[in-house]
């Protein structure tokens, strides 16, 4: 038993190596206290530095598509606040997608994802674009097999999840971890709230119009935008019909999920953070510019049966049917919307393509 001390030392050395190998570092999600903690991270997918790094690689990984040419990032481009500048996106089939690619920002606080709220939680959301024949067109099982054959991924999945073989479930878990870190809270508007900068006169006028509902009987003018797009995150998780069509037929929106006729043509009320970067607008990308969007809300929307109540009742003129802002008021609101662009978000190296960092 001469070698016993030596063997013991060896065992301790090796086991400590094994433990450190699985030791993960919790990722600290940083956001303003005003954003609140009304979010849930699944117990079986806590956010770690290592998991986020893996998720980031997968986000930019074209092997997850049937043609090895399309990654999540193909239609969610950082420069466009993780949206697509195309009206409809083009995936592996070459056929346009059904809806406009959504901006991926502050998803930590979103429970039901997509324009129609069909997926509960980011882990479940990722399954849809990965498998859809007009998006990435590849089953999770096929993706897992492809990644297993690479030199890079098996050890990374082992490290993050402690698994010996890659599964589809762990692909979506890693992607969800990365997506939770896509937090944008550093626009000129945010800095103005902290007193670090001041908005210009036009931006300030636009801010007031944005935040206020009109009350012509009291001489108050407003766009009432914040009624739905308000709060610290400039979003609420609600689904509204904003009068794009008199009755939505081609795309019924949330009705397709709930089968409730009152949900006809209802779509997610999106966050307006980085809105100047995410053109074109609406679920079908029908508006190319913010000017067109403002014209819609101000002058053109249809009085669909389930039109959002606030659109129906917000008038700046006592006898008005629609919003009735002047063209200079619309310009002021757009000036304010441009202050919601967070340039640090779209240039943050932590969110960029990890395969291009050595440029």
């Amino acid at each position, binding site marked *: 038993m001469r070698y016993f001390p030596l063997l013991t030392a060896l065992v301790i050395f090796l086991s400590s190596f094994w433990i450190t190998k699985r030791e993960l570092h919790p990722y600290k999600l940083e956001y303003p206290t005003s954003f609140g903690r009304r979010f849930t991270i699944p117990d079986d997918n806590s956010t770690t530095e290592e998991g986020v790094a893996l998720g980031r690689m997968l986000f930019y990984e074209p092997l997850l598509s049937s043609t090895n040419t399309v990654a999540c990032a193909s239609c969610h481009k950082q420069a466009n606040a993780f949206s697509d500048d195309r009206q409809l996106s083009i995936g592996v089939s070459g056929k346009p997608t059904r809806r406009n690619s959504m901006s991926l920002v502050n998803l930590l606080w979103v429970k039901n994802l997509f324009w129609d709220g069909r997926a509960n939680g980011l882990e479940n959301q990722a399954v849809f674009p990965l498998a859809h024949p007009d998006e990435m067109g590849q089953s999770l099982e096929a993706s897992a097999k492809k990644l297993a054959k690479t030199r890079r991924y098996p050890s990374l999945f082992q490290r993050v999840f402690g698994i010996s073989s890659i599964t589809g479930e762990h692909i979506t878990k890693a992607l969800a971890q990365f997506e939770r870190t896509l937090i944008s809270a550093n626009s000129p508007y945010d800095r103005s709230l902290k007193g670090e900068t001041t908005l210009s006169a036009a931006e300030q006028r636009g801010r007031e119009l944005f935040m206020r509902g009109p009350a012509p009987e009291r001489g108050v003018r407003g766009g009432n935008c914040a009624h739905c797009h308000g709060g610290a995150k400039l979003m609420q998780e609600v689904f509204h019909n904003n009068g794009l069509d008199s009755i939505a037929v081609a795309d019924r929106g949330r009705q397709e999920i709930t089968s409730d*006729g*009152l949900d006809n043509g209802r779509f997610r009320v999106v966050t307006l953070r980085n809105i100047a970067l995410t053109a074109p607008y609406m679920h079908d990308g029908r508006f190319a510019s913010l000017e067109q969007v403002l014209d819609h809300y101000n002058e053109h929307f249809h009085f669909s049966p389930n039109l959002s109540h606030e659109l129906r009742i917000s008038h700046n003129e006592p006898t008005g049917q629609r919003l009735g802002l002047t063209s200079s008021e619309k310009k002021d609101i757009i000036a304010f919307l441009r202050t919601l662009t967070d340039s640090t978000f779209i240039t943050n190296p932590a969110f960029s393509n990890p395969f291009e960092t050595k440029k």
Partner: protein
Amino acid sequence: MTPTSIKLLLGGILVLLFTTKELLAQTLSVTGEVKTPLTLTASDLHALERTEVTAKDRDGKEHRYAGVALTAILRKAGATLGGELRGENLSKYLIAKAGDGYEVLFSLAEVDAEFSGRTILVADSVDGAPLPQGVGPFRLVIPDEKRPARWIRELKSLEIRFAK
């Protein structure tokens, strides 16, 4: 009649039919910490004891709302109200949710008429007429609140939970 006006008329009738049909199909669910979860239709609501309140809506005008007291609905579901609203039951709350996903919270104690002395109404009519689409078929009316932000339109569900 010109072809355009006929088209408009037909369109109008279509929208009206659509509206009526959808409103009639709506239900109100009561779930969570209750003895008997409920799914109530408009006619179920008519069969319960009716209550009326007069209250100022956001237009600043007084309106007469009719419907059923929220307490009566919660009692029908077997929520812990009245004498049972004591001890740990005072840490229960109610989430009221609208069709568009908007939700607001009440403590169970504040909605119980016997406890708080206030009447909250699940209204289905205003000034003698059914609530219009976009507002109805059910709406919460809370007469004594200065801001109507909890007067949920298109009320879909009431869920009682324990604060944990």
